[in-house]
């Protein structure tokens, strides 16, 4: 008995150590970037430094917003992500509702098609879309990004909304039908209010998807005033003699904050939404 307990105790000790290691491993890059972003240029030029910066200043953040106008790419990102999210939710709610309640027989076929699209290699899409937007004169236009992100946001949205709608019991809708509500009223007045938490998750995931994209923005947005935040980061802090990592890292911190806030607000729902979609499939 004692031997078993002792073995279990050392096992647990090892386990806690491993957990600690994972936490350090996960946090360390974040810490390093945060610390670097508070360094000033002189400190940075000295090169090597310990784990703790000697001076903490906001100098690089001032440079970021004053010299590099980082607010513009942040605003671009927010605009594109918000538009995509609203459109994809609207179309996604309609599609998911139809698949769950109106034509359930089409559900498997449409869902498989939708899932297949989500795995189409991004790199194979860049070329043809580039030519299409060039001919339509949409290069450097927000619409190019909004439409492209919709291709990826909409399938994920539909997939998640389908699993959310099918969990809602039919009784209330049937009651509404008996009272003479139209399909549209049933959807917007009865079903949607019940599905709000799920719709919220879909919205967050869609927003994050747009906010995070790099390769489409890199290919379609050609002038710096239209860059999105991830693209702008790559062009930060470059000078002839030195790369100013403190300014890059300040940009990294600013770009990450909205995502961190969203995750902290809705972690539980994001996890539930992700696993619901995949477990059903």
């Amino acid at each position, binding site marked *: 008995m004692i031997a078993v307990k002792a073995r279990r105790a050392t096992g647990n000790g090892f386990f806690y150590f491993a957990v600690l290691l994972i936490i350090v491993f*996960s946090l360390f890059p974040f810490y390093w970037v945060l610390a670097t972003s508070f360094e000033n240029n002189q400190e940075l030029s000295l090169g090597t430094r310990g784990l703790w910066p000697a001076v903490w200043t906001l100098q690089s953040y001032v440079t970021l917003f004053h010299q590099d106008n980082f607010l513009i790419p942040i605003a671009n990102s927010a605009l594109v992500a918000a538009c995509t999210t609203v459109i994809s939710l609207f179309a996604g709610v*309609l599609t998911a509702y139809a698949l769950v309640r109106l034509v359930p027989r089409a559900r498997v076929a449409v869902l498989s098609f939708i899932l297949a699209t989500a795995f189409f290699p991004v790199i194979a899409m860049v*070329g043809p879309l580039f030519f299409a937007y060039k001919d339509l004169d949409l290069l450097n236009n927000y619409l190019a990004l909004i439409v492209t992100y919709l291709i990826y946001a909409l399938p994920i949205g539909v997939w998640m909304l389908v699993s959310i709608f099918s969990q809602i019991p039919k009784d209330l809708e049937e009651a509404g039908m008996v009272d003479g509500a139209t399909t549209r009223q049933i959807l917007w007045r009865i079903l949607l209010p019940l599905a709000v938490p799920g719709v919220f998750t879909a919205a967050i995931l869609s927003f994050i998807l747009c906010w995070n994209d790099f390769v489409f923005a890199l290919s379609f947005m050609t002038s710096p005033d239209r860059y999105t935040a991830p693209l702008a980061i790559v062009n930060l802090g470059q000078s002839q003699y030195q790369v100013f990592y403190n300014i890059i890292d300040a940009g990294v911190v600013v770009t990450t904050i909205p995502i961190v806030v969203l995750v902290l607000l809705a972690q539980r729902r994001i996890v539930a939404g992700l696993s619901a979609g995949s477990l059903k499939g």
Partner: protein
Amino acid sequence: MAQATSPIPETALPSAGLTANPAGLSRPGALAFITPGLILIVVFLAVPAAWTLYLGVTNYALFGPQASHPSFVGLANYAQALHDPLFLSAVVVTVAYVFGSAVVGQMVLGFALAWKLRQAPAWMRQPIETLVLFAWIIPAAVVGFLWATFYGPPPQTGTLNTVLHTQVNWLYQFPIPALIVFNIWRGTAFSMLLSGAALNTLPPSYLETARLAGASGWQQLRDVVFPSIRGTLLTNLLLITLWTFNDFTPFNLTGGAIPGATTLPIYIYHEAFEFSLFGLGSAMSTIMLLINLIIALGYLWVLRRTAR
């Protein structure tokens, strides 16, 4: 499955519109709901996909005479790709990247974490879940810089060199292991969350019974856990394999400039956008698409075989 929801056959009640169509809506009406979404996906996905296939058999380029008058070159692009040692090396790098980081790293580590954390107290489980979720969800460009700084070469010494007191250019000297470690860090969250969700669906009595019968931890996993949640684990494996295969994030670490770390998407990007060889790039994309398809079919085959 769809029929099971309405026990009364539609033909049995021809007069009652309510039961004939569960939402009292005609078929064209239902189509109106689905169309906007589908049209968008079809037009902007299927058309470019077909276009990729077409470009692959032309010598289309962004500039020069081939830009305005591309001509049909048959399978020449495919032949060129398959004889290009850099393309083949990109395939090898990609396969190593996928196998090392997704299949072995994320899948095994993610499941192990979920299995171990299953009984951990909430104060321990939740911070870990949040942390790994962060790594999974933050922008690729951001992740790229986090890790470029981490692996930073001398003279602007990066984190790893600072901690280890070494002077190693990690990404040049150990490109594949460096990328694998990076992608395990980035992607383990998804496998962990999915495995955790699947483990939660297991009735506790199953494991209880196995424990009482004297099964060791490994025996419980092999005989009880894996057979029950096999479907989810395989789905997870398919998702992370395809994601990693198509992943463009290594570009953000290397700037696409390190030969040993050039994965397939990066190489295709170079050919198409930097050398303006869109025909060749499209042929390579098509080959990549075929590999994706083979992976997906292989997964379906395994799923069907083990389902018996």
